[in-house]
């Protein structure tokens, strides 16, 4: 039904480089897709083009088999949750949620029913008479969700909706949004620069860099088989180590100029050894620790170890790896299969 197809979409702002460069991707009906990338990668622009807040320079957007990008934004049957919520400050929570319905000629009684249903779902019933200035950040977030929800749109668009919340609330809202989306089965596109948000919430995620789509796949596909060196470096915390092939004692596929290995895959038991180095710094996180090591050639590596590791600064770092954990990249930063 509500299958969202983006075909070869580009956006060129006047006199600038391509903010979005020939992106094609398909969001299946009911699927939750996260657009992930560093700031300025074009992910928000892409979302705004789906919403109709930006025009397309090239390409086409289709929703449920119908051309979408020629339709004015208010007729798109697409609801958006903004980063700073963008609530109407002079209206109550009820007014905010009812506004779109009022303008679509829904009857007063039907509006009341739909708003109250949404309010109940979002635990806002007690707060419907309040104005945004009388609500906390999390409550405003819920009202913004409710405003999108009551429209019963075909597509939900989220533009970094959690970035203004504190860490605890963000974790909670993450779960709530995901559960809500699962229950309602509404096709959703979620923009974020936070990989944890993207990994935990999305069915599939699209990693973007400099306007281009680098990889589109499930979170685990992207973690285990990053298609480019950029994706490999962007996904995973602490980030992947990139080593020069000369440090590795094993034959590598032809064309390999960089070898990546994640900090959690460098272990004492690994079948193949890296040259021994020494420990420069240890970040203690309680359940685990991140050891910053220096190898010969001044090559820096990060190693993730268990919290009870008992290392001190200056100790030797002698770790090994298994071949199937290596990620090889060529001179263009593309993955080389082993």
């Amino acid at each position: 039904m509500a299958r969202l197809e983006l075909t070869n979409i580009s956006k060129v702002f006047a006199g600038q480089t391509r903010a979005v460069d020939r992106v094609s991707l398909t969001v299946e009906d009911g699927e939750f897709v996260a657009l992930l990338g560093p700031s300025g990668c074009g992910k928000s622009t892409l979302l705004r083009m789906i919403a109709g807040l930006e025009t397309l320079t090239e390409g086409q957007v289709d929703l449920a088999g119908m051309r979408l990008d020629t339709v004015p934004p208010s007729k798109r049957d697409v609801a958006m949750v903004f980063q700073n919520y963008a609530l109407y400050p002079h209206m109550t929570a009820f007014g905010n949620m009812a506004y779109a319905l009022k303008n679509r000629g829904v009857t007063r009684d039907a509006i009341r029913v739909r708003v109250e249903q949404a309010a109940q779902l979002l635990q806002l019933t007690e707060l419907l008479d309040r104005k945004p200035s009388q609500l906390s950040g999390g409550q405003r977030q819920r009202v913004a969700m409710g405003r999108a929800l009551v429209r019963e749109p075909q597509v939900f668009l989220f533009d970094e909706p959690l970035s203004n919340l504190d860490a605890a609330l963000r974790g909670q809202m993450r779960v709530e949004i995901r559960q809500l989306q699962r229950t309602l089965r509404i096709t959703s596109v979620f923009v974020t620069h936070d990989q944890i948000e993207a990994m935990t919430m999305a069915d599939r995620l699209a990693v973007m860099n400099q306007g281009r789509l680098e990889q589109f796949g499930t979170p685990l596909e992207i973690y285990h088989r990053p298609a480019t060196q950029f994706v490999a470096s962007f996904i995973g915390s602490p980030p992947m180590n990139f080593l020069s092939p000369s440090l590795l004692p094993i034959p590598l596929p032809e064309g390999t100029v960089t070898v990546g290995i994640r900090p959690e895959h460098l272990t004492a038991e690994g079948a193949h050894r890296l040259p021994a180095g020494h420990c420069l710094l240890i970040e203690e996180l309680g359940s685990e620790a991140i050891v910053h090591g220096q190898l010969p050639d001044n090559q820096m590596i990060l190693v993730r170890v268990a919290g009870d590791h008992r290392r001190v600064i200056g100790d030797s770092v002698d770790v090994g790896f298994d071949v199937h954990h290596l990620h090889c990249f060529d001179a263009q930063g593309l993955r080389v299969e082993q």
Partner: protein
Amino acid sequence: MPQPALMKRVQFSHSPIPYLFVLPQILIIGVFFLWPSLEAFRLSFFLEDPWGLSNQFVWFENYITIFEDPDYQSVFGSTVVFSVVVTFLSIGIALLLAVKVDGLLRFSMQYRPLLTWAYAVAPAVAGLVARFLYSPQIGPLYDWLNAGTDGWFEPRLDPMDAWLVLISGSVWKQISVNFIFILAGLQAIPRTVLEAALLDNPNGGRRFLSITLPLLAPTLFFLLVINISYAVFETFGVIDTVYPFGPPAGAETLVYKVYVDGFKGADLGGSSAQSVILMVIVLALTMIQFKYIEKRVHYT
């Protein structure tokens, strides 16, 4: 606990320096507002001879004379109409211009200074401009309005024509100030709120009325207060420069009448009483605005 002691010191030791900072403002208000107001209030109870040599305390006789004067009543009425029209037009036109400039992506930087130029113009200069534009000898607007008629438009004789001159001069002068404030107000509205409205409401006009205008209300309310007092008081400068020898009968405002009766007619007591009435009216008007209109204004 050192904190309470610190708080106490901050709260209770007074330094004279802050008072020194507000002193110039206090002095200006005292010398140019409070003292003349009190003097006017005092004089309004006296009947004075034109040379100021003798005066006689007459209780409320000056006020009674004013209220019984049909001339005063008609000037009062025309001042109300004039002020409402000037306020409405100067805010309305400025709002239209500001909305149009705010919606521009290109050339808005070029339009803005053009539209705000007149801000630097004093009311007297605005009056002078109006006087030239409508002058029977050299005025292009005079010629244009009279084109094809035999003297249809005579702002020196006909009070209605005179009102047209005075209103257009006063409005022209005030549009730029209002434009600056409204444009700043429009640009203070978060873009994302307008974008959210764009997704929620397909009708541009209704979007403006239901979202933009309410968010602009604090600015508009401020301008309403400012513009009414401008229309009542400051337009004196426009009137006096367009008509150095007085406008045609029936085209005066209350402030102009205070001036004519006091300084040309030498009726200091009556003129003072008029100015006291004027002061009370503006005070009441401002209080009404704050009490009833401000309630409906949403400040974010």
